[in-house]
């Protein structure tokens, strides 16, 4: 190999490798699926598993939330799809919702996933408006519900909350 070619190739390889390492340090992926998914998302080639997503939706609509989350996790194994992550966060909300009290642990998990979903959405704006089953269509509304559920205030002792509806 001519010296000039070797030097140019080495420089290019070093820059690409260093960029990859920087990306890995910034993203901190936990699985190989997250690494490959993140890289394919970076070049716009990432696709979720549509069949697993459909399974997740079916579980979600029949209030089988842990099963729904498993299916959504399978559909978006790299955690790179904002819409799927929104559904996972929503499943935490619906599972944690109660007339007398809300499960703060599930709500916190929901907020964590929602943060991830918003980070993945273009411009941080996440709206899912093509699903009539949902009563909350945006990440902002869902965040408000989750945060209100975690917060303890006077409204928690209002007897009228017994008549409130799950969204």
């Amino acid at each position, binding site marked *: 190999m001519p010296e000039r070619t070797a*030097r140019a190739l080495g*420089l290019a390889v070093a820059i690409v490798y260093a960029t990859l390492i920087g990306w890995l340090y910034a993203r901190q992926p936990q699985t190989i699926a997250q690494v490959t998914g993140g890289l394919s998302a970076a070049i716009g080639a990432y696709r979720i598993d549509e069949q697993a997503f459909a399974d997740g939706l079916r579980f979600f609509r029949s209030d089988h939330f842990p099963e729904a989350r498993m299916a959504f996790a399978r559909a978006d194994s790299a955690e790179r799809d904002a819409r799927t992550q929104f559904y996972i966060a929503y499943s935490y909300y619906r599972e944690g919702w109660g007339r007398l009290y809300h499960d703060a642990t599930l709500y916190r998990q929901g907020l964590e996933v929602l943060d991830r979903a918003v980070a993945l959405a273009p411009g941080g704006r996440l709206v899912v408006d093509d699903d009539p089953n949902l009563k909350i269509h945006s990440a902002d509304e869902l965040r408000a519900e989750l945060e209100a559920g975690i917060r303890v205030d006077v409204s928690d002792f209002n007897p009228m909350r017994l008549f409130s509806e799950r969204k």
Partner: protein
Amino acid sequence: MTAGREAIALPIVFLTVVLLGGLRIADAAAALAPPSVFALVLGVLLVRVLVQCGALAPERLVSPSRTALANANGVVVLVTLWAAGSQAIALVIPDSGLPRIALNVFFLVLLLNTAAASPDRVRLLRSLSVTFGSAFVLKFVVLYELSTPGTSWLKRVLQTMLEGITLGTLTQEPLRPVTGYIAFATVALFLIGIFLLPHDHGAPVATSEIGPYKALLPSRPA
């Protein structure tokens, strides 16, 4: 030194050290830990010592007589060497407690002492091998054994006593055994990388290097 070694092999070796050196695999999760600021400072000291002792000849990497592309390759080698040195030091320094402080100070004093002693290249490489090897053994063998949850009641009792005596400043977050294997490979790779660096041929030659040729030297008068 060939262009392939300078432009391809050395950057890849050092960047791999940067990548693998940060890997921490615990039971709960895996994480990539960047080197601390102090490790970055120690990395600068390490590069300085390498230059001072002739193990690295910077003028063979960056100089006005080289082309712009060759100089760019040289800069990449220098930067990745610094990053890899910092990461290798951070790798063998314990993650918390008294051992972390002690090893940080140990590395600082050792590098300053080595700079003051200014050994030749061969002695420096030996010294670095022993230093990194000792720190590796301390972290991944001694402290690992002290920090891993005991399987027998005797070990658990001894661990509890040790934690009580040292107020918990000695034991570390337990890591998976695979972390030790990866760390071993990383330290070895870093030392190989240092060995492959373009060195100063005019640097003082170690006695061991001239040993076989000693007979050719004129004998000193008694």
